[in-house]
């Protein structure tokens, strides 16, 4: 207990330094409002419901896009690993899109689907699919050929073999790809809402910033940062649980 407290003491010190710097006007309190005022602004935002309603929109967009990316990207990666002809033609396209800085897609998704949910979901889906596909591909390629052959010779159908043999052996790398995708989803959801949206965390941050409500803006920024951190931690726990069967 004390060791945990000692470990996270620097964060507390940082928070205290923030409060002190802002309180004693060492920096402009417009640019850096004291942490205590930010906390007050956070409770206000929670009470009037704008944080919850915008947050729900963001999380909905993010989770639908990510889920689609995991399902389709994972399937694509495993199919690429198993069917050589498919791999030969699809892999170059994956390689082509892999280095594309995904944020470049923001204006295009807006052109296609407008300012609402659709464009954000499409963006998250397209961007997150790549790391999941590559993870699934590398993982499934590593699955032992002997296991595949024995499953086939014991009469497993192709689909069955994919599910029972290839999927489990691809799982560790697939899950790592999903972790990258999760981080990417947070980055893109916030930035695309900041650039082109009328709802969501990113919109709320931009709106509060432009009206000069900096305390509230800080409150939303910290909330998003905290959610991203928590999502990653929760995901790590799930990942460990899913990989328990490996010794």
């Amino acid at each position, binding site marked *: 207990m004390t060791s945990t407290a000692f470990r996270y003491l620097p964060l507390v010190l940082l928070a205290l330094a923030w409060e002190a710097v802002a309180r004693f006007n060492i920096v402009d309190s417009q640019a850096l409002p004291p942490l205590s005022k930010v906390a007050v602004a956070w409770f206000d935002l929670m009470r009037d419901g704008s944080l919850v309603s915008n947050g729900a929109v963001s999380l909905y967009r993010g989770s639908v896009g990510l889920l689609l990316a995991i399902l389709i990207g994972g399937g694509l990666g495993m199919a690429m690993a198993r069917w050589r002809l498919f791999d030969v033609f699809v892999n170059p396209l994956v390689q*082509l899109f892999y280095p594309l800085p995904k944020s470049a897609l923001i204006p295009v998704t807006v052109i296609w689907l407008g300012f609402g949910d659709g464009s954000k979901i499409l963006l998250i889906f397209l961007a997150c699919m790549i790391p999941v596909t590559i993870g699934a591909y590398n993982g499934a390629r590593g699955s032992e050929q002997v296991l595949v052959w024995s499953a086939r010779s014991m009469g497993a159908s192709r689909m069955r073999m994919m599910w029972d043999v290839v999927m489990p052996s691809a799982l560790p790398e697939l899950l790592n790809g999903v972790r990258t995708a999760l981080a990417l989803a947070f*980055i893109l959801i916030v930035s695309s809402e900041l650039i082109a949206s009328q709802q969501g965390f990113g919109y709320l941050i931009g709106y509060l910033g432009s009206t000069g409500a900096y305390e509230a803006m800080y409150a939303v920024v910290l909330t998003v940062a905290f959610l991203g951190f928590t999502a990653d931690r929760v995901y790590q726990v799930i990942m460990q649980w899913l990989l328990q069967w490996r010794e």
Partner: protein
Amino acid sequence: MAAAMARVDDQPTLAAAAADLTQAAARRLDLVFRSGAALLSILLLLICWELFARSGRVTMFMLPPFSVVAEQIKTDALSGDLWRNLGVTLYRALAGFAIAACIGIVLGVSMSRNRVVRWFCDPIISVGFPMPKIAFLPVIILWLGVYDVSKICVVVFDAIFPVVTATLAGIAAVDKELVWSARNMGASERQLTWQIMLPAAAPQILTGLQVALPIALIVEIIAEMVMGGYGLGGAMMSASRFANSPGVFAGIVEIAVVGFLLIRAMAVLRRRLLSWHQETAE
């Protein structure tokens, strides 16, 4: 006798050499086949794009044909806009990346060599790494304005975390016996850092840099889109404001090419820097 022995020994080596040759030939054939298929599939994608855009199922605004987009890129290139935007984007992204690399490696090394630094930075790094730091973009604009400095700062802020964690992990994985023997032979702490730990951790540090580079590009484009001004991302944003959809698609193609070339260059750099390492020999 000795000659006969040699001949007997020669045969398997010859056979092995022949096998090596056929294997190399097969590998080369495979490579040719694969790169041919790669070109073909990219070509197919472009043709499908062109045909679909011209089929009348989508409007010119939704998806301009590739030829129109290529024309737009050519116009931008001839007027010089492309080069100016490209230069600005590359400058900020690479400056931010370079600063993040330097500070990140120094911070990683000092965290692994100094317990106080480690105690202070460890929770900040482990909490900060998974955070979507892009949310702090408006805060950085508030502090530093919308010009180069703030864009570079946003890039540094995002790209530094993978470098620090990779450096930490790389140094933690350095063979203990390597360190002991260096100490035993009288290496000073400075020599230990520069001549033992950094080279031994180099593969992992470079992996960290390879993670950080695409992040730097993504963030630079976002920063330009939010703050406006010159740059490939800024140009895309103003094109989309004027409903100039060939301009938007031209931006995607340009940014894709930049990303592709930079990431390739990084992989080449890795192979160069690690030419002494067994990883490259494979």
